[in-house]
């Protein structure tokens, strides 16, 4: 994916993005693999739905989806939203076979239940609603 790219950029890095610095956002960004692993394992032991947003700071479509993802995270308070920068945590991106951005991986009990590739707001919302409903009944 090219991890050298974001450091050459000079553009705001993932942790400089508005959602994590100015507004309280329910989307939690992860910057280290161990921290991510801890969090993943914690959620795995629950029945909670988690949406992992794989994005890159240099990817236009990712920036396009940011406001929608934040809004969705606020709306669905019982769903866990996590954000991973594919350059920062390239091993995690590889683990989830992320080829294009943004990629949203829906995970339940540590297993992938659905995936959306691209900035498709309506499809993401639809799938989150669907798996969230299933979650409530399980």
């Amino acid at each position, binding site marked *: 994916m090219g991890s050298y790219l974001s450091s*050459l950029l000079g553009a705001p890095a993932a942790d400089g993005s508005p959602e994590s610095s100015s507004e309280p956002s329910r989307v939690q960004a992860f910057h280290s693999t161990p921290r991510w692993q801890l969090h993943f394992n914690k959620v795995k032991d629950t029945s909670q739905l988690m949406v992992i947003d794989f994005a890159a700071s240099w990817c236009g479509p990712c920036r*396009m989806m940011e406001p929608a993802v934040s809004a969705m995270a606020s709306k669905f308070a019982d769903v866990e939203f996590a954000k991973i920068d594919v350059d920062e945590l390239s091993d995690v991106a590889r683990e989830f076979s992320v080829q*294009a951005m943004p990629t949203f991986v829906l995970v339940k009990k540590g297993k992938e239940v659905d995936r959306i590739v691209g900035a498709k707001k309506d499809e993401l919302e639809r799938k989150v609603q669907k798996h969230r409903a299933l979650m409530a009944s399980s």
Partner: protein
Amino acid sequence: MAASGFEGFEKRLELHFTGDEPAAVRMGLRRIDFESLERVLHEVQCTVVSAVGNAHLDAYVLSESSLFVYPTKIVIKTCGTTQLLKSVRPLVAHARDLGLTLCLCSFPEEVAYLEGCLPTNVCSRKASIMRSHMAASHSWHVFTACDPDLVMDKGPAPEDFYTVEMCMTELDRGQMTALTGIGEINPGALICDFAFDPCGYSMNGIDGDRYSTIHVTPEEGFSYASYECVGSVYDDGDDIARMLRKVAWVFRPGAMSVSVTSGSSQVWTRVANALEPLGLKRRSCATDQFPEAGTVVFQSFTARRV
């Protein structure tokens, strides 16, 4: 890309950019923030409906169109009513903010850029590439645009004037440095010239309401000189022949092209006869007509070397 088609069902625009800073070029246009892109697309009356990106590019599905953003290239393909060319100027401005400049490395790109800058009333447009017997690099590229409803009622009728442009290559080596005889081409003109260091020469001449201009690039291997002047249909018919001969005599080119842009004048017919005695044989002649701008006749010649 259709340079002049506004009636087509599908239009495609490709813009190439270049930059000095490696960092600017690395992610380049992908750094244009989404809100800015949206505003540009609003100008051309379309919106993003879906998007995805990978290591190489960002791809946007628009209402009626598609947009692809590479670090140094933008491709927009649209159908229907999208006014594609209106995106050129804002995109170029955003690119400039990122340290990138539009790389107008081809005629279609230049035409696209020009068209993006023109107001809609200037709707009578034409682009043409006129060939010579020589390589594609020696073709004459013309783009004209005008407002067909505008009536120009000031000054002498444009069709009374014509413009002659001579492009010369393979110049005589001795003449490139001496440039003797240049002052004789139009002795009545007021000359304003400049000699460049280490070589090169440029000159402007003004004579009443007419200008003439010469530019010389004498570098070995790619010597080039150009001469341009304005003539009138009321001039003595021999004047233009004399001028052409003087220029050819001064520079002694191995190859040259002469383009005459005029209203209705037949002055172009005098060119070949003027140059033939100097050993310059005509190899090609191409004509094209441009709305309101006139007729362009593009002829090429080569010297019969002894």
